[in-house]
């Protein structure tokens, strides 16, 4: 009997060992997907990556330390408010991690494609679940190396330098952090259930998805604009310094009182504040640590018992929406030229991820300029400052717009082999080629004019001047767009896109980006020169002259690029090997 029990025990331990080994394999397999672990193989690469990451971390620590040190020197906060800084950092970091974990866990646990592969493996389904959680946790650890850990180290360094705690605190702090970082993962796993149901619902009704996205976008824009509007004019930092620093200090004290839980966590990391004005680990700290571990344990059990069954349910489902058998749709005839516009429109609408990339630029640029000008209005500037404001505004309007044209330099190549068919059609290739640029052109017009209006209104340009500037930048943008398209025609990369679907280092993109930077810089310099004469001159109208000259330069550039484009198509397009 004993022998039997012993055998069973041995078997159990063997099964456990086997199970653990499988778990390890699973974890590594999925980890490789998330993080590039190829460097482990090659010794040289291994050391290089480690050293690079170490240097990066030290850099961040150094910069953070410097900022904190300077802030405390100028009296932004005193030593008693120090924990509140850490509370803030911890809150922000954990908050961001929570959001990203929830989102990614939703995708990874329930909607991931490799679930279907994993379920075929000879492993216990529990282990799959646990392995996923572990993978996420390790990924969280790695991400925290970039943000949370360096900042914590720098805060501790500051405390150590001021003599508020001992050096051993540095080593101690990692232990609570290990447990603190479990929290977003576990919370995320729980919250992901809710998110998953929401997602399922949205998938069934795709229009609500679009609506929701638009509503969220509008709300966030309004929110940001409102916040920017709160920045006051003409802040005199030096004169109002006592008020400002007082406000900041009050804010920090409030933070500590409102986020009590976070401050408790911070106290686990740095110990409690004793009578001797040092931070020291005492019994309370260990008790709090214990509480933390217990909470983690409870969460883990919750996750195990709640999320796991749902996970099993989802794993096997097929999420492709069943093909709806639609009725016979009618054939629509369009004009020969309009059909290209129609086709582009449909394709752009359906490859929304590329279009969204664009959309983001066109929405973010006005907001950035709004913020920039709010900051500038808060400063009381002299003549040189006003000129610099013009220059930097024009630079920062042109730069993102032109840099986004790098995508245009891949448009024709992105079609892959379909692009060759243009040459077989009985239509002169210039027309379909230029239609591809139409949507960029249309979307850029409102952005440019809105941005110019924002800029112009904060430096008190009148409507005519704003329009002139808008046209100037518009033509510059179009000229560069056509140049990028030109690059793509002369150096087509169709084959690369046809085989791999995407290209990592497209030379056309690089050239286009480089020229975008150079053009923006040169244009900003020219506008500096032209507008400086204008404002140094006597009459108000001279700003208009400067802007007119800018516009002439842009139109000349646009004209030259268009001419070159047309001529290149005529000379080379049909001859380039397709």
């Amino acid at each position, binding site marked *: 009997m004993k022998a039997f029990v012993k055998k069973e025990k041995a078997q159990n331990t063997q099964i456990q060992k086997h199970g653990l080994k499988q778990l390890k394999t699973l974890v590594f397999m999925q980890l490789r997907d998330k993080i590039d672990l190829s460097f482990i193989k090659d010794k040289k690469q291994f050391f290089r990556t480690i050293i690079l990451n170490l240097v990066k971390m030290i850099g961040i620590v150094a910069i953070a330390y410097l900022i904190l040190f300077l802030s405390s020197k100028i009296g932004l906060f005193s030593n008693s408010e120090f924990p509140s800084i850490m509370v803030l950092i911890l809150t922000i970091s954990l908050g961001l991690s929570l959001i990203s974990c929830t989102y990614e866990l939703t995708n990874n646990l329930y909607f991931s494609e490799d679930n279907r592969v994993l379920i075929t493996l000879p492993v216990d389904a529990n282990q799959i679940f646990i392995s996923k959680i572990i993978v996420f946790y390790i990924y969280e650890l790695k991400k925290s190396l970039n943000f949370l850990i360096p900042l914590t180290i720098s805060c501790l360094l500051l405390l150590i330098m001021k003599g508020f705690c001992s050096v051993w605190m540095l080593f101690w702090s990692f232990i609570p952090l290990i447990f603190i970082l479990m929290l977003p993962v576990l919370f995320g796993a729980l919250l992901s259930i809710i998110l998953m149901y929401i997602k399922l619902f949205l998938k069934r009704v795709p229009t609500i998805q679009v609506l929701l996205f638009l509503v969220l976008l509008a709300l966030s824009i309004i929110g940001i604009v409102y916040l920017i509007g709160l920045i006051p004019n003409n802040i005199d930092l030096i004169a109002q310094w006592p008020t400002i620093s007082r406000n900041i200090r009050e804010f920090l004290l409030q933070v500590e009182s409102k986020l009590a839980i976070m401050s408790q966590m911070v106290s686990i990391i740095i110990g409690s504040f004793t009578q001797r004005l040092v931070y020291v680990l005492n019994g309370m700290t260990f008790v709090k640590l214990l509480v933390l571990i217990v909470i983690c344990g409870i969460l883990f059990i919750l996750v195990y018992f709640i999320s796991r069954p749902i996970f099993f349910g989802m794993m096997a489902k097929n999420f492709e929406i069943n093909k709806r058998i639609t009725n016979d749709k009618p054939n629509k005839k369009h004009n020969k030229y309009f*059909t290209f516009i129609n086709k582009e429109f449909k394709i752009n609408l359906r490859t929304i991820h590329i279009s969204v990339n664009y959309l983001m630029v066109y929405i973010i640029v006005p907001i950035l300029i709004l913020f920039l000008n709010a900051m500038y209005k808060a400063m009381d500037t002299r003549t040189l400052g006003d000129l610099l404001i013009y220059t930097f505004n024009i630079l920062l309007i042109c730069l993102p717009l032109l840099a986004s044209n790098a995508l245009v330099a891949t448009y024709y190549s992105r079609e892959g082999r*379909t692009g060759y068919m243009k040459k077989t059609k009985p*239509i*002169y290739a210039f027309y379909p080629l230029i239609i591809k640029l139409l949507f960029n052109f249309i979307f850029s017009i409102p952005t440019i004019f809105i941005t110019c209006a924002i800029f112009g209104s904060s430096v008190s340009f009148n409507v005519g001047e704003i329009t002139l500037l808008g046209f100037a930048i518009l033509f510059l943008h179009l000229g560069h767009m056509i140049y990028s398209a030109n690059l793509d025609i002369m150096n087509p990369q169709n084959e690369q896109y046809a085989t791999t679907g995407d290209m990592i280092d497209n030379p056309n993109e690089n050239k286009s980006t480089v020229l975008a930077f150079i053009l923006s810089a040169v244009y900003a310099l020219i506008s500096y020169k032209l507008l400086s004469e204008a404002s140094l001159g006597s009459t108000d109208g001279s700003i208009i002259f400067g802007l007119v000259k800018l516009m002439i330069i842009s139109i000349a550039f646009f004209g030259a690029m268009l001419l070159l484009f047309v001529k*290149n198509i*005529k*000379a080379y397009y049909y*001859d380039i090997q397709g």
Partner: protein
Amino acid sequence: MTINSSIENSNIANINIKNNKISTKKIVSFIFEKIVPYVFMIVFAIRLFSYQSLIDTYIGLNQSPISAVTTFFTLVAIWLQYTAILISILRSFFRFKVLINLARYITLPIYLFNLILIQSIMILFVGNKQISLLFVCYLAEIVLGIALSIYYLIKDCKVKTSIKEIAIAIGVLLLMMIASLPAYFIQFVFGYGRNTIIPKDISFYHRVLIYIGIIIPIILYFTLRNQSEEVIRFSLIYISLATMIGFLVNYDYTIFSRPWSWPFHLCNTAMFIIPLCLIFKFKRLFYFTYFINVFGALIAMLMPNYEDTTNILSSKIFHFWFNHWIAFFMPLLIVALKQFPRPKIKEFYWSMIWFLGYFVLVLFLNVYFTAIGHKTDFFFLNTNYVVDQLGTWAEQLFNIEASITVGGKILVFHPIYQALFFATYVALGLAIWFVYAEFFRIADRHYELHLKLKKIKQVEIARRSVSSKIRKEEFMKELETKEAKLQLIHFSKKYATSKVYAVEDANLEVHKGEIFGFLGPNGAGKSTIIKSIVGIQPITEGNIEVCEYDITKDAVKAKYNIGYVPDHYALYEKLTGREYINYIADIYEVSKEDRDKRLAKYIKIFELESSIDSKIKTYSHGMKQKITIMSALVHNPKVWILDEPLTGLDPNSIYQVKECMKQHASEGNIVFFSSHLIDIVEKLCGRIAIIKKGHIQCVKSVDEIEASGISLEQFYLNTIGNNEEK
């Protein structure tokens, strides 16, 4: 006997006379073309330095010692003299139409004009009419000039010319006069004008002068780049020599005793180096100018070092700007016009070595001359002119001095400033090189484009689509009546990257109602031929005609008649099948009724009812192929071309496609396809062609082959196996 000998004697005498004539001719031409120009040059050089000039002290015609009208004409005569001398000298080295006319017709009156006004010229130059070295030299110039003109008049009398060409020569003369403008001319004739115009500090007039310095070379480039090598060389040499002379006019013989006033500034050296390098083709010296001088001239143009009181019409301004324009644009123009090749890194190193040499020389000259009491500042190394513009930090650097006492003279250096100057200059030179390289690359590309477009226009290819409505209706009618036909006439294709022909001398004719199969091993040229027919590849030699429309000359019309199914389906995956076919139908302008009918028919044949309205992304391989076939047939083309259409299809689909092909051919159209599946080709095709290594081995009908007793497969293997099968 005596008559014979006398005839012989007279013959010999004639030959002797002829020989003498020939040898006199040779001697005369040797004198006038080899010796006289050099004598001329020497006389001219002596004349330039032989007097102390008063002519640049007169401001305005009313200050002149002789009457205003005479003064004006005298000045013009002096101006023309410079031009004429250069023409006469250069004529002996160059020979083209305009120069020939200039040297014989135009220079003579100029010299005579000068001869008439020589006394006034003397008065303006030195203030008196006495016989001096200047007088003698000037007279000698005129005499030599007249002699040369008469010589050329006689020598080139056989060269015919027209009034138009003489007018062109006069026009060219006027242009040439711009380069040889004496610096004092404007101030003498017009005085100083309004005193308020000061071209400095990027004021409006300053900018105008800079723009001129950029626009003129661009104009020169565009006018000269299409001319012959000789004309380009002449123009460049003339410009550099004329401006060098204009530069030298400011100096006289006393300058030789004052070495601290010698023109050692960087841009001054350019005036000499450029003609020297152009004439004698010194490469390394030229690149020194190219890298160092151009940039220096640009900076000098932006920060001119004449005083604020210098009037815009004064000779100083002309002197300064001519000097710096030449130093700035001539090297660039010379390289742009390919007189010297584009420099590589080796040339850069050499020019840096030259620059070091120049730098050290100038440094010591500065220091030495300053030590003996004449404050010199060649290249701005010795004074604070440059640091003044930069700010106080630069001043502090400049004030760090080091002095050495040599033989009683104290030599003062500013080591840090000078070392930094050198280093910065070298670094900027390197940076500028990249800018040049980029600009030249762009210029070259544009020129290539320009040439290519010219060639295209010459070949008269109409690649525009049928635009006007009337022509369109005619064309549409034509489309329907034309018979289906596909012809390759001596078609050859060579890829740009290889030396071997991909397809050589292919001849083929396919008639209506035929299903034509195209066989051959991989890489034989099947895809090349097909891609050339449909227009994806250009043709190197020969013609391809589709329904009697040439594929290059009437590309659009030909393509209306073609339906192409490529070997890898090329579809827009995000569109639905129906949307895609409608899109293709729109391009071919298929009417609604036709496309409804055809779509319904093909959907039924290919059994695509349930998926025609789903996105192409969701289709299987066979379905995508079917959509491609449908899109190629929606406009009912007369020539249907397929490139390996049946690969990867299931048997049912293959059957459907074959039925389609048979149906299409039975309607009088051509079906032209390449395939590897010999069985299918055997059953489907009427005629086949076999291609191997770019050559069509044979064109036969399947029945013929089978009548001879072997299967198509065997025939094919035989043909591919050895070359000599019929």
